[in-house]
């Protein structure tokens, strides 16, 4: 390697983690190349949930007003879906719209904006550029190889997403187990905004996000999601691969079953599918996070395994941004100190541990294990519906108080008292 590399930092992947890292590094005065294999930034990216934008507002002042966001999420629903009905918790609050940070996004628009912010601070964006492998000098990463091109850098950032071939090739991440991965299958369904607002009970800027569990996945571990964009709805399922394979189910059939369910059908009547997509999701939580640094290499975002499913919230994009902020600070210091070895970059995992990313990953370390419980994907929803049926479906027989009605429902459920107690206890500990 020549003494002067082409760039201080080469960032692979123009998603949330890659653009945030590139923006921070260029803002700090480093020379940065941002490589994206899609035609444009965002072309390969798919969101499957809400962006909790507090960290984005720290990186990009005025983010909530300036960025091309879809809707402010001021209504959240958690829904246990059964074959014949559903039981929901529905929380709407005006303060979520005025002070909250949860927004829906479409990555085609958001990522293009993020890449433009990067270019404005001097990042060199190279789109349509697939990185084939890391460039090594001994045990040290010194750049990337793309076709016949070699780009040399002091530090390479692998922001290449959940499949991260770069992190795998560097041995930083073991092959994920099937139980640690899920496939998200999603459609974007166009609806006229006024119609959408009436159906979902939201205002002109407001929006709904739903987490759905149960019959949406036909009992397969995972769940359904639905959230409103400005003039469309993103809807889909997330299916844990170990369970999908074990049940020999078809991801297409499960998705089609969900969107035909009366719960969905009434909300999307007359809508038109304007895009269909799928994406792998990390489901293993803290246990999936491998080594984050190597000599000359740093891993961020989905590539590092930063995703959190707590049942009520599913987070990836905010963790991607948080990891990128920590990585950028550590790299800036390492380049200034002239040491970009793993030891020189060790500030990144240290900063991360102290940030909301590290803390939340630890807080929810037990969540993946809890969410493996198969009772969540069928029996719990049926029990809730049965108990409410006992309260609300008056058939002329004398009534019982609430508690005996609920106890009768538990007795009728295939779940034992012990199973139910353990589920409750584990849930309280994990979530």
């Amino acid at each position: 390697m020549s003494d002067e590399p082409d760039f201080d930092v080469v960032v692979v992947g123009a998603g949330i983690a890659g653009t945030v890292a590139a923006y921070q590094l260029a803002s700090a005065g480093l020379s940065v190349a941002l490589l994206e294999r899609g035609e444009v930034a965002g072309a390969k990216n798919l969101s499957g949930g809400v962006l909790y934008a507090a960290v984005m507002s720290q990186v990009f002042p005025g983010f909530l007003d300036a960025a091309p966001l879809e809707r402010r999420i001021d209504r959240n629903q958690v829904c246990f879906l059964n074959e014949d009905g559903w039981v929901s918790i529905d929380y709407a609050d005006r303060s979520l719209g005025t002070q909250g940070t949860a927004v829906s996004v479409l990555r085609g628009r958001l990522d293009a904006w993020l890449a433009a912010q990067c270019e404005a601070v001097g990042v060199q964006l190279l789109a349509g550029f697939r990185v084939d492998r890391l460039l090594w000098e001994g045990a040290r990463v010194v750049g990337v190889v793309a076709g016949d091109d070699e780009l040399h850098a002091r530090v390479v950032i692998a922001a290449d997403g959940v499949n991260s071939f770069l992190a795998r090739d560097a041995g930083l991440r073991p092959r994920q187990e099937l139980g640690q991965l899920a496939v998200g299958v999603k459609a974007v369904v166009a609806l006229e905004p006024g119609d959408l607002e009436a159906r979902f009970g939201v205002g002109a800027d407001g929006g709904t996000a739903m987490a759905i569990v149960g019959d949406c996945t036909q009992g397969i571990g995972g769940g359904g999601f639905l959230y409103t964009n400005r003039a469309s709805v993103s809807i889909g399922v997330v299916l844990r691969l170990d369970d999908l394979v074990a049940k020999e189910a078809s991801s297409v059939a499960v998705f089609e079953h969900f969107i035909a369910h009366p719960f969905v059908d009434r909300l999307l009547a007359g809508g038109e599918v304007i895009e269909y997509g799928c994406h792998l999701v990390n489901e293993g939580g803290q246990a999936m996070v491998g080594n984050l640094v190597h000599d000359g290499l740093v891993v961020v975002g989905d590539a590092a395994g930063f995703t959190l499913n707590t049942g009520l919230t599913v987070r990836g994009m905010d963790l991607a941004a948080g990891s990128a902020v920590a990585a950028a600070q550590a790299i800036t210091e390492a380049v200034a100190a002239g040491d970009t070895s793993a030891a020189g970059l060790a500030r990144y995992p240290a900063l991360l541990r102290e940030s909301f990313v590290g803390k939340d990953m630890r807080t929810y370390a037990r969540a993946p294990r809890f969410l493996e419980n198969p009772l969540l994907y069928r029996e719990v929803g049926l029990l809730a519906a049965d108990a409410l049926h006992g309260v609300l479906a008056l058939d002329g027989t004398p009534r019982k108080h609430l508690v005996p009605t609920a106890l009768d429902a538990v007795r009728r459920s295939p779940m034992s008292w012990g199973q139910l107690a353990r589920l409750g206890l584990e849930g309280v500990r994990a979530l």
Partner: protein
Amino acid sequence: MRPTTVTERLAAVRFVVDEDEPHIVVHQELAKSTGTAERIIACCPAGVYWWAPDGTVAVEYAACLECGTCLAVAAPGALEWRYPRGGFGVQYREG
């Protein structure tokens, strides 16, 4: 909402097909002997894989949405799967 097939939904997606370089190769014997064939056919949300009449696994790589699910469920060596060359493959406009 009107029911749609995978093919109809994929028609709404923009693809830039790399006619010169397929990015997926199924190793037929290993795919069949390891159960990989059944798994990738069932798991792929884009319907890229199906049983051909001659008993081999057919591949329509042009419809690949590049999620990586097939690679995750495949037995080692049964499937070669990489990203398409830069600028090719699925190009989401909504995302």
